[in-house]
């Protein structure tokens, strides 16, 4: 296992630069999730680590060795692709063993490793099937099996769950978390889904427009977002932003309050608003309120609530959970 270091990594296609100087230290055995909106460059960073794209500028180290010029197979990485990318004409067994076969690993050792991976991923009865005879979840496990048998220093996952249906996604997420605990491998995982990021990651790297916005543990990002982008991206429903001037604050430009950090009362509170829509989810109730010049605010209440459209409510933010941002969008420490 190994750590991964990115130093001033840039990627340009012709004169068009998509990654603008990324510095990142991934510690040995960490599960790091790269998260960001589509087109932010998170997949490109993963492919740069894998060696599927050439690095335009900067240095990449895996296990202390500079790998800029090394082909993917020499970097000690294994990758799981979004579409699984199984070889359609090969059996599950051949799919898993292809890399070992190319590396001229002795036959008995290949057989042993394939058997071990199949046992771990519950693929043993499927070894002689073709990929088209498998379900989506099974294909995903074959793709993971193909990665495991190479004993990589670093696992790379490119949105591995986005082709699965919702139920299977949660189940596979659990399996991935367990797999990471068992393998103790350094893992870099790309997703646009912040729930996946929050649930799987030791550390999250939030990326926007080819740059890192913030690096931190899930709770650091949730409790102390460094800027407006991270504050708005992490957390669902999204954080409420209010222009500070409109509520008489002068110490900052924007204040942010998460929907779950607003108390609701029928009698009194700091702000007043009319419910324009209510979402009853059972465990939670999301209220969308029109608060006049403060704009549209979202409130998340726990449990079942009787509020409905048209109700006039008073809102009070939990004071020590209010985030303040300056004119550049940077968080002001509190």
């Amino acid at each position, binding site marked *: 296992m190994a750590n991964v270091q990115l130093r001033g990594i840039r990627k340009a296609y012709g004169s068009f630069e998509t990654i603008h100087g990324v510095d990142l230290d991934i510690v040995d055995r960490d599960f790091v999730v790269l998260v960001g909106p589509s087109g932010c460059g998170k997949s490109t960073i993963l492919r740069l680590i894998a060696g*599927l794209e050439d690095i335009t500028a900067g240095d990449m180290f895996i296990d202390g060795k500079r790998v800029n010029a090394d082909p993917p197979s020499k970097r000690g990485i294994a990758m799981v692709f979004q579409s699984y990318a199984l070889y359609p004409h090969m059996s599950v067994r051949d799919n898993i063993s292809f890399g070992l076969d190319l590396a001229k690993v002795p036959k008995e050792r290949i057989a042993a490793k394939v058997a071990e991976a199949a046992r771990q991923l519950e693929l043993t009865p499927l070894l002689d099937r073709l990929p088209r005879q498998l379900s989506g979840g099974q294909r995903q496990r074959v793709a993971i099996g*193909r990665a495991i048998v190479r004993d990589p220093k670093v696992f790379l996952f490119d949105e591995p769950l986005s082709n699965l249906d919702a139920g299977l996604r949660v189940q596979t997420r659990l399996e991935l978390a367990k797999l990471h605990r068992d393998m103790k491998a350094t893992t870099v995982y790309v997703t646009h889904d912040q729930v996946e990021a929050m649930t799987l990651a030791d550390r999250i790297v939030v990326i926007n427009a080819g740059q890192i916005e913030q690096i931190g543990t899930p709770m650091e990002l949730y409790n102390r977002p460094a800027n407006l982008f991270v504050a708005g991206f992490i957390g669902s429903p999204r954080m409420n932003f209010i222009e500070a001037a409109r509520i008489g604050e002068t110490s900052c430009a924007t204040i942010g309050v998460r929907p779950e950090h607003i108390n609701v009362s029928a009698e009194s509170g700091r702000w007043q608003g009319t419910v324009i829509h209510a979402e009853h989810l059972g465990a939670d109730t999301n209220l969308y309120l029109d608060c006049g010049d403060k704009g549209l605010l979202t409130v998340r209440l726990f449990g079942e609530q009787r509020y409905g459209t048209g109700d006039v409510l008073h809102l009070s933010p939990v004071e020590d959970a209010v985030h303040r941002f300056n004119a550049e969008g940077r968080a002001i420490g509190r």
Partner: protein
Amino acid sequence: MPKSVKTGLFWLLVVAICLYALFPFYYAIITSLRPPADIFTVNYFPGKPTTDNYVGIFKEQNFAVNIFNSLLVSGAVTLISLGLGVTAAYALGRIQFAGRGLLLTTILSVSMFPQVAVLSGMYELVRVMGLYNTPGAMIFSDLLFTLPFTVWVLTTFVKGLPKEIEEAAIVDGATPLIIIRRVFLPLLAPAMVTTGLLAFIGAWNEFLFALTFTIDSNERTVPVAIAFISGATKYDLPWGRIMAASVTVTLPLIVLVLIFQRKIVAGLTAGAVKG
């Protein structure tokens, strides 16, 4: 219109199309089975069939040698076309480089020139390379029209293969040649069979180059040999033998198509099923 009339018209059309497609071949077969004396009486049934014509072309002419030449030329052309075609298709379909579109268009434009236009130039090339009057001359020149479409069709298929499969192979440590041989070739097999068969048929039926670049009857391929079949006198055109020869050389093609029929159908529907 009542349903029975519709069905009747449909089958009438089917019969008409079959007649149109098959009658020339049928007439060739029965002509080849008739004795020379009966040739010029119109008759739609063989009457008393005879194999004299078939025996004749093998006994009195070197037709077996000609068939061998044709097999050699067509086989070599097919293999070379597929070998060069699939490697070129990998480069053209997968690797980004400057002038790729221009190169593809150039390859296509090569096949736009009529054979006659390039004949004299090809003749010079063939003579300089010392291939004149050898099967090599035909193999070399037939590539002129088999390669462009092989490259084009295979490039389209290579472009259709998911890029992630190739990248997975790269991560697994496969070199470009291993990717082509162990990942792409099995996936391209239906396309290879279809293009290979078309290349084979094209080379098998090629006439002009084969006529121009050979002088000995022992070096001729089948289409030229058939054109040179002569009768007892210079006024005698032996239709029976010509037809017998034609039928003989069409059979291998039919057999090939029948053998690869399943693969061809698989090739036509290959893109429809998501792997």
